[in-house]
Every structure is written in structure tokens, then in C-alpha cells.
């Protein structure tokens, strides 16, 4: 009787322990699907002289990865573009469950092309840093919107 009980307890303990671990991991798996902020503080701003001069012409966006748009699709930034899950937008991301209806806007600002977060639920990220308000894009920056990643290439 004692033997059987001890065996049952041993099995129950391991099963319960791993079920608990699994519960935490399930929550963690949801985090991986959306863009992450970095825990390393971003480097201080580079001195003005070193910064690359703002591009003269408007750039384009290349799809790196997206549940909706085919990889490698180029989007010309000749005009203001809004990305989000709504089908009527310039960059429609209907299949991206982590994007908001109207998620982010790409526009041409004073210092070059900018991305602006439209108060999206999961945030807009540039190279892993969450954008608050708007942010000037440098060539090669990767913009993450939900599960979609767009690379910005400056116009030349």
C-alpha cells in the first residue's frame, strides 16, 4: 500500500511540475509572435556629423516576412502609406492577427522618411525598439508591424 502510494505520488509530482512549466511556456510562446523590445538600452545619439544625411528622394519598403504579402514585394513610398488589417489601406495586412486595424503610417518628414505608430495595440518596432510617436528611418532599418517585417531602403 505504502509502495503504491509512493509510486503514485512520484508520478503525480513530475506530471504536475511539468504541467505547471508548460502553462508558463504557453504564455511565453505568445510573446514570441509579436515584435519585442530590447532590454539593452539603445546607444546614445550619434554626433550630428557622423549621422547619415537625410536621403533626397523617397525610399521604398521591401517585405521581409509577412503572413499576408509575398516576400520581396516592393512598395514605393511615393505618397503617404498606412499599414494595418483594414483591406482598404495602402498596405493591407488582413492575415496578420497581431496587427491593428490602422497600425502605422509611413510618411515623408523634414529629415527624411518617417514611420509613425497609430496607437496600435502591439506596437510598431524599428530594429526591435518600440516607436513612440514617429521616427525617422535610415536605410536598412527593419520595421515590425505585428508579424510583418518591412525593410526600409532609402531612395538614391
Amino acid at each position: 500500500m505504502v509502495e503504491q502510494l509512493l509510486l503514485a505520488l512520484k508520478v503525480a509530482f513530475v506530471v504536475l511540475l511539468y504541467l505547471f512549466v508548460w502553462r508558463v511556456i504557453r504564455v511565453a510562446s505568445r510573446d514570441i509572435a509579436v515584435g519585442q523590445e530590447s532590454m539593452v538600452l539603445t546607444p546614445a545619439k550619434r554626433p550630428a556629423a557622423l549621422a547619415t544625411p537625410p536621403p533626397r528622394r523617397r525610399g521604398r519598403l521591401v517585405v521581409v516576412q509577412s503572413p499576408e504579402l509575398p516576400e520581396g514585394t516592393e512598395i514605393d513610398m511615393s505618397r503617404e502609406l498606412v499599414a494595418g488589417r483594414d483591406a482598404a489601406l495602402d498596405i493591407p495586412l488582413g492575415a496578420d492577427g497581431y496587427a491593428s486595424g490602422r497600425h502605422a503610417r509611413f510618411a515623408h518628414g523634414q529629415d527624411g522618411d518617417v514611420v509613425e505608430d497609430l496607437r496600435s495595440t502591439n506596437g510598431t518596432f524599428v530594429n526591435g525598439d518600440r516607436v513612440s510617436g514617429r521616427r525617422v528611418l535610415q536605410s536598412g532599418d527593419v520595421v515590425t508591424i505585428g508579424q510583418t517585417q518591412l525593410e526600409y531602403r532609402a531612395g538614391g
Partner: protein
Amino acid sequence: MRELWNLGWVGGLTAIGFLSVYTARQNEISSASLTYAGVFLAVFGLAHIGVRAGLPHADPWLMPLAALLCALGLTEIYRLSPTLARDQSVWVVIGLLGFLAMIFLVRDHRRLEPYTYLLATTAVGLLAVTMVVGTTVNGAKLWLRVGGVQVQPGEFAKLLLVVFLASYLREHREVLQMAHRRILGVGLPAARHLGPLALMAGVSLGVLGIMNDLGTALLLFGIYLAMIYVATGRHLYTVLGLGLFAAGSWAVYHGVAHVHERFQVWIDPWAHPHTSGYQVIQSIEAIADGGVFGTGLGRSLQVLNHGQTIIPAVQTDGIYAAWADETGLAGAAGLLLIYLLFCYRGFKIAAIAGDGFSKLLACGLTFAFGLQAFLIVGGIIRLIPLTGITLPFVSYGGSSIVSNFMMLALLLMVSNRAVERA
């Protein structure tokens, strides 16, 4: 609500653990052990109410994970010696009181930020006092006797230094990132900005040289390197730091007998199996004895008939080995997974935290926690030289339990603030 539900799981695990140990010990089935689990759950339930009242947005996983580590530790300590388990449960209650006191008195971790140098002075002062009037146990001078109770100031110094570094680096990170002059194509900041950081490295070395405490020294130095990297994002400091570490290790290996011996034992414990190598060999044997599923809680041969244990200091240094013996690879891996998940939650808090101080604080606390677990588990399985530090929340030891709960309180404050802001 989620936190309470998670604590319920932990309560279930505690009940099974205690029932198993009790049954194996008495060779009869009794529900008496379930009361222990009930009391444990009730105590953490009260702490849960405290957290929800003080920090409504705090992370719902960290406290249950810490509670689970505590429960596993208590179960194993109860198995090794019921007397020690009684002491340990008193310490857990004191730790939780400290935890709640922190939450209600400090409330917002950012209120600690202005006290940069006060914190550093207190930490260094604590260590210095221990060096002068400390008690020596097992060749290391780590203890202070205060009215009949022995405290380990190193544990609290660790906590204070993390807060100091977070505050100092937040303020000075720009100057550390800027290149003041270039040597061999590498930009270095001005020497005067490195002063307080060099002091920090000196403190670690002092701890090692005077207190003979390799574990705490490694831990402090590791925390320091990790936090500098988080603050600046420059690999230079990590490389420099590791270089310094290598040079320092070489010097210490040749200069300090205690460290020399530890290192020799690590390379070949079987050279002196009955003296210096005994602890490491017995730990490895215990882990091997456990196999995949272990002997079962309460059924290993770790405790002899008259209450003596096979592994020296099994309730502190060797607790991982005892746990691995009784629960096997499955239980030991589960324990390590819990540490991993705890660190994951901690780093996630650092990632979502809004300001530099919060990010640094969360990173530093989490890293300290993870590194400490790595150092002691790595030591026991002979991956690295064995250092006598505690396994956070699991090992027997009042100072360790209390300081870890205070660290947990700070982490929860950071997460509360980060979620509130979002």
C-alpha cells in the same frame, strides 16, 4: 486571479511532496503532512493579497515561480532534517514579511534612484564590517553574529549593489558610450568616468581576497559586467571585463591557497576522495544514483539512520544533488526550467520597462538570480569549480531567503510600473 490560480498549482505540488516524504519516513499513510502544505499555501495566499493590494499590475507569474522554488526547497530540507525545515519555514515567513514591507514602504522602485552613493556606501560598509569582525565558517569569513542570529551580509550587499549600479549607470551611460580617446582603434571613455566602476571590481576582489568567498566575488563581478553591457550596448566592456577576470583568476590561483585548492578539486576530485574532493564526489554520486526518475522523495540514502547526511553541507551547497537523487533527471531538469522561466519573466519585465533605471534594475536583479543558480548548480555537477553560495529560494539559509524575497519585491515593482504605463 491568475496569480492565485498559479499558487494553487504550487500548493498541490507542495502537498504531494510533503506527503511523499512523510510517508516514506514514517512508513505509514497519514494526512498530517497535508497540513504543512495547507499552511504554506495560506502564507503565500496572504502574500498574494498583499501584492495585489500594493501592486495591482505586477507580473502574475514571478511570485508563484518563487513560491514553487521555496516549496521544492522546503520539501527537500524537510526530508533532510525536520528541525532545519522548521527554521527554514520561519525564515520564509520573515522573508515574506520583508517582501510585503518593501512593497508597502518603498511602493515605487524609482524612489530608490536618488540614493546612489548611500546604497553603494552601505553595501561596501556591510562587506567591510564582515571582513573585520565576521565569523569564519568553513574557511570563509561571511558571517556576522547579531544577537544570537547569524546573518550573511554578502546576500544583502548583492541587492544593494544592483540598485546602485542601476542608478549609477543610468546617469553615466552616455559618457561610457562616448569615445574619449582611441587606443588601437577602440574608443575608450575618459579615465575619471571609470573610477566608481573600477571600485566595484576592487570590491569583488576584496571579497575574494579577504573574505575567501569565491562565490560572492564571482557573482558580484558577473552582475557588474552584465549591467554595464545592458547600459551601454558595447561589447568592449564585456571583453575587457573577461580579460581582467582571466588575469585576476590567474593571479588569485597562484596567490590564494583556498582558491588554489578549490581549483585542484574541480580538475581532479578523486585525488583526495576522503578530504577535499569528498563533497564533490558524493554530490556527483548522488546525482548518478537518481537516474531518470529518481529514488522518490524521501527514499534516497542521503540521510543515515542517526540523522547525519552523506554530502557535507547538503542543505545549502548540496541541495541540488539531493534533489536530483530523489527526483531524478526529470525533477532536476524541472527545477532548472523553473529558474529559466523565472529569468524569462524577469528579462521580459526589463524589456517592457519604460525608463533606463527600471530596465537596468530588472536586468540586474534577474541576472543576479540566474547567475547565482548557475554558479552553485554548475559547481555541484563539476562544470565549474564549486563555490559555496546558495541556490536562490531553495537552499537552507535565512539571509538568502530574506534578500531574495526583497529582490523579488523590487522586480514586481518594476513590472507593476511598466504595465501601468502601457
